Structures are given as C-alpha cells and as structure tokens.
C-alpha cells in the first residue's frame, strides 16, 4: 500500500517498549493530516504475537527472521530499506531510544533521504513536514523543516501519551519475508540483567536525586542526610555513575532506572531528556538548581533557584525539626492516621562512604 505512514515498533528482550505506542499515537496524527493509512513495522523472530497489541495502526507489517530477534540497528536497517523502497511510505517514524540508536539514521543514509532525530512533535505543513526537536540537553527546541518524502523521524519518549495508541482492536497482520546477511556484523551473546543492586530505587517512595550540581562525592552526605530525614534513598543522573560517585544501580534515566516515587527531589539536575524519561511519572517533583532556565523546572511541581550545597543543609534541618515537632512527646507520638514516608524507613539507603561505585564488571 503506497503512501502510508510507517511506525517502527521497538521490541527487545521479548516485549514491546512504551515508545512504540507513543510513536504510534504521533503517527496516527500525522497519518490523519495526510489522509494516509498508518502501518506499524514489527521486526522480530517468533514475535508475531506482539503484533496483537498494535491495533492503533491499520495494519502491522511483520518481518520474521532469526537475525531480527533482537534489534541490532545495522541488521534492522538492512531489513527495512527494501521494504521502504517497495512500499514507498510518506514518512517513517522510528523510536529514538538507547535500545536501537541509529536505525533511523542508517536507514536514511542507505536510502539517501533526510533524517531528523530527537523529535518531540511532528506535523504536516506545506510541501513537507515540520518537526520539533529537543537539542542541547533539552535546553533548546529546534523547529526543523523537511521538504522531501519519504523522510525518517526519530521520535523521543514522551512525544505522546502511549494510552492514545493502546486499543483493543485486532490489527490486520501482514507477514513478510526478508533476506539478510547470514553473518551479522555484531552478535548478541546474551542479556545480562542488572546485578548486585544495593537498593531497588524503583520501589522507593521518596528519592533524593543528585546531579552535576552536587559538585563532588564529598558533598553526597548532604543528599544522604536529606534522604534519611525523608525516609528515602539517594539516586542520581548519568554523570554521577560515570564519575563513580554513585553505583549504576542508583542511576535514573534512559540507560538507568525508570522510577515513579511519591516524592522526587532533584538536586542540581539540569533535566536533560535522557534523565527526564526516567522520572517524569513521579508524584511530586521538587527541583533545586542554580540555573533558573534549567529544563528540570518544566517537569517539577515546585522549584527553587539556589545553590544546592547551601540549601540542602537548611532544608534538611527544617525537615528534621518539623518531624521532631510532629512527634510531640515520645518517639512514636505521631498521629495514628498519618501515612508518612518517614515511617517506612528509619534510615536512608546511603550509597556513599568514600569509595568509588564504579563496578569492575557488568
């Protein structure tokens, strides 16, 4: 069917990622603007059953091949290119995540067509498309015009709510075959689940998350003390793990954990898209940053422009003194009806202690 809008599903390790439905919801809008059909392309091996949840599209084009069992970008692009040449879609929306980075770029490069990455929005305009992209750590939004079809657009997580594309309708599934190189350029031996995690931060109701603004490992106790006062745990952005200041198990974001705590205190975190994707569903977000224009304030409920190193001790003191006041007399004198975070953990899960948290093996 020529002239449709393609959305590439992201499947890995036997399941579809949320981004699949988010891109599908955006793809539906684009298809409606073009008055074109919407089709999902699903690559996999023995993964046909995953297509059943993709009823948000008119049809699912399923390519089954042993080499497509997991998403190696080069192999995926090799499978997609002939399909795009044969079906001539109007545009192709691909997930822009760390699972399959580069599929869109490889595909576009191979077909000599335009590619735009990091799109948070996409619409049809005169003689082409207008994509809105988040660049420079989420601090700048670029409006980009593409005047050629087909074009490939990398869609960021969160571009649309995934529920918009989750339907109970059964899609039409078209089974396709593909020919691929028998010897892939890279070979996945195995997935290695996260190991040796000291604390499961995904189960914590309160998280104090630190970023570059904490300035060094020596300042981590400031965050630990606040986490202890709130009965939570300390976690952090990518830079914290890269510097060895926090263990990988405490990392929030696209290559770390996705968390949904009741309270998320972002300390010295700018709010790059790679971080936000891991905490955007938190119940209450408080952000502390010296930069009033930091993107994290766009995702926070309350914000304070301040040096975290100065504010944290005062904030912690206020929490500790308030808690003591709330207790009244006696150690367990708080209101019987109170549901408090502090009751859940007498102490914070503290990751520091003067040693590097970079693991030596994965």
């Amino acid at each position, binding site marked *: 069917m020529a002239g449709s809008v393609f959305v590439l599903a992201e499947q890995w390790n036997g399941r579809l990622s949320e981004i699949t439905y988010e891109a599908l919801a955006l793809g539906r809008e684009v298809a409606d603007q073009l008055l074109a059909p919407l089709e999902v392309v699903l690559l996999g091996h023995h993964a046909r059953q995953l297509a059943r949840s993709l009823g948000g599209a008119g049809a699912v084009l399923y390519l089954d091949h042993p080499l497509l069992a997991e998403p190696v970008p080069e192999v995926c692009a090799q499978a997609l290119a002939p399909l795009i040449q044969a079906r001539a879609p109007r545009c192709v929306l691909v997930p822009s995540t760390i699972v399959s980075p*580069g599929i869109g770029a490889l595909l576009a490069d191979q077909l000599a067509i335009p590619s735009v*990455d990091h799109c948070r929005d996409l619409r049809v305009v005169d003689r082409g498309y207008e994509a809105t992209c988040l660049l420079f750590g989420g601090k700048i939004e670029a409006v980009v015009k593409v005047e050629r079809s087909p074009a490939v657009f990398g869609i960021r997580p969160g571009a649309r709510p995934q529920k918009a594309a989750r339907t109970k309708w059964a899609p039409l599934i078209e089974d396709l075959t593909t020919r691929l190189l028998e010897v892939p350029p890279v070979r996945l031996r195995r997935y290695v689940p996260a190991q040796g995690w000291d604390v499961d931060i995904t189960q914590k109701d309160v998280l104090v998350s630190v970023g570059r603004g904490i300035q060094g490992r020596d300042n981590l106790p400031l965050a630990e003390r606040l986490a202890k006062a709130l009965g939570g745990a300390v976690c952090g952005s990518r830079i914290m793990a*890269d510097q060895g200041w926090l263990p990988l*198990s405490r990392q929030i974001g696209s290559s770390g954990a996705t968390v949904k705590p009741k309270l998320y205190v972002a300390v010295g975190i700018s709010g790059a898209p790679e971080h936000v994707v891991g905490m955007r569903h938190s119940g209450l*977000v408080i952000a502390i940053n010296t930069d009033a224009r930091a993107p994290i304030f766009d995702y926070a409920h309350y914000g304070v422009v301040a040096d975290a190193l100065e504010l944290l001790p005062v904030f912690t003191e206020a929490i500790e003194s308030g808690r003591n006041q709330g207790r009244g007399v006696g150690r367990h004198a708080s209101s019987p009806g109170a549901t408090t975070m502090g009751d859940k953990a007498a102490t914070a899960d503290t990751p520091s202690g003067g040693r590097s948290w970079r693991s030596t093996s994965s």
Partner: protein
Amino acid sequence: MTLHILVLLRMVPDVVEELNLAADGRALAPESVRMILNESDDHALEQALLLKESHGGTVTVLALEAEGVDDALVVALAKGADEAIKITDTEGHVSTRHAASILAQVIEQEPGLRAADLILTGVQAPGDLDAPLSPVLARRLRLPHLGVVSRLYLDCPGRVVTAIREYPGGMRGEFEVGLPAVFGIQAAEKPPRCVPLAGLCAAMKGQRIRCIPSAVAAERGAPQPRIVEMRRPRPPGHAEMLTGSHEMVSLRLREILKARGLLRGGP
C-alpha cells in the same frame, strides 16, 4: 598484533552554561557559547587509553576543525594519545551525516588511519540533529558497529571484542564484534583522567597536531533538514517557583510535604 585505536573528537557547546540564541533565531549565538570536548568523546578517549595501557599499541585522535579543538587535541596528547590530527577546511557547521562523510573520506585516504583496529567516538553529541555519528560513520566505512558501549574486552589474537552495551533499566547486552569495528562509547570503564601539568606542558611544547584539509563538498544527494527556528522549549508545565531566604523556602517546602502526607507528622 600492534593495536591501533582511532578516537574521533568533536567540540560541542557546553550545555551546563546558559545558551543564548542568535539574532535570526535559527542558531545558538556563537559569542555566548563555550565550546568544550563532547563529554562522551572524552569517555571514548579514556577507553582508548585504558586499552592501550592494557594491550599496548597506539592511540590517534582525529577531530574536525572547530573553536577550541587545538586545546582538546593537545590535552589528548598530554593524556597519552600518540598522534593528533585536525581536519581543516570543513565549511563551518556541518550536519552529523556530513561530518561522517568527511571523517570517512579522511580515514580511507590516510593509510595510518585506515589501518585502525578500533574506531571509538562518543555515542552522541548534544547537537546531533540528523543522526548519531558512529553508526553512520561505520556504514560509510563498511565496518561493524556497536553503540551505547560501556565496556570493551579485547581478544587481540582472535581480533574479537566482547563489548558490553547498555539497555534501559540497568540491563546490559554482551556482544561479540570482529575487528576492525566502530564503537559508540557511552562511558569508559573509569572516569576520564585528569591531565598532568607536566604532560600538558610537554604536549603544548611539542605542538604535534597534524592538519589534513577536507576534500568533501557539502552533500547534494539528500536534502538536509532545515532549521527554521530555535527557541526555548515550550514546557508541558512549569514549577511553582519558591523564592526567599533558604530558611523561608525550606519551611515552605516542609509545609508542602506535610500537607501531602509526605512527612512524619503530616495530616
């Protein structure tokens, strides 16, 4: 086997600093931008130096001409790189796919670079609008590629690399990649090293940066995306900003948490 590692370095705006827009609203204001070495490229360099220390061999750093790039190359030499090369005449700003063309052409034309066993670069740069660099470069060079890499274990006689690649949720993937190959580095095994002052002085004194002019014209084949506007993001929402002294702000935050039952002693 003498290991030869090529590291690609790019200069990017420092996103920690405030970014201002140019008068035409289509680019960053150059005078307000502080250019720094791309953070993940720094990790790629560190990973290369760690491999060199473990297995011997040489590390060459290669960069496109950009503001501040000479300093970055000198620092790379001071850290332990053996050779630094700068590609000149690159017609100002280039898209990532065009950058891949330029780099691929230089690598293929220079025998010393073409012989590289590993080509490492950062997994992404903050201004990559059209593509990440490493997969496109690998395609142009017809080499295997793996991105989002955080560990490389080298089996030199077998010319095989075991690479650990990151996935969401702390999952890792263990891959086997034959050499030569291109890797997009997410993070090195260790944080990027600091530069010893003595080494920096020696590198500056030596000034061993070799220049190679680019011979690649702007790509005509695929129309490039055109930036029609740059702006600050229109947020989905914005925080209620609390102002006042640290004490006042802290007490207000305490009241907010208390009202929501997030404090001991809350309602």
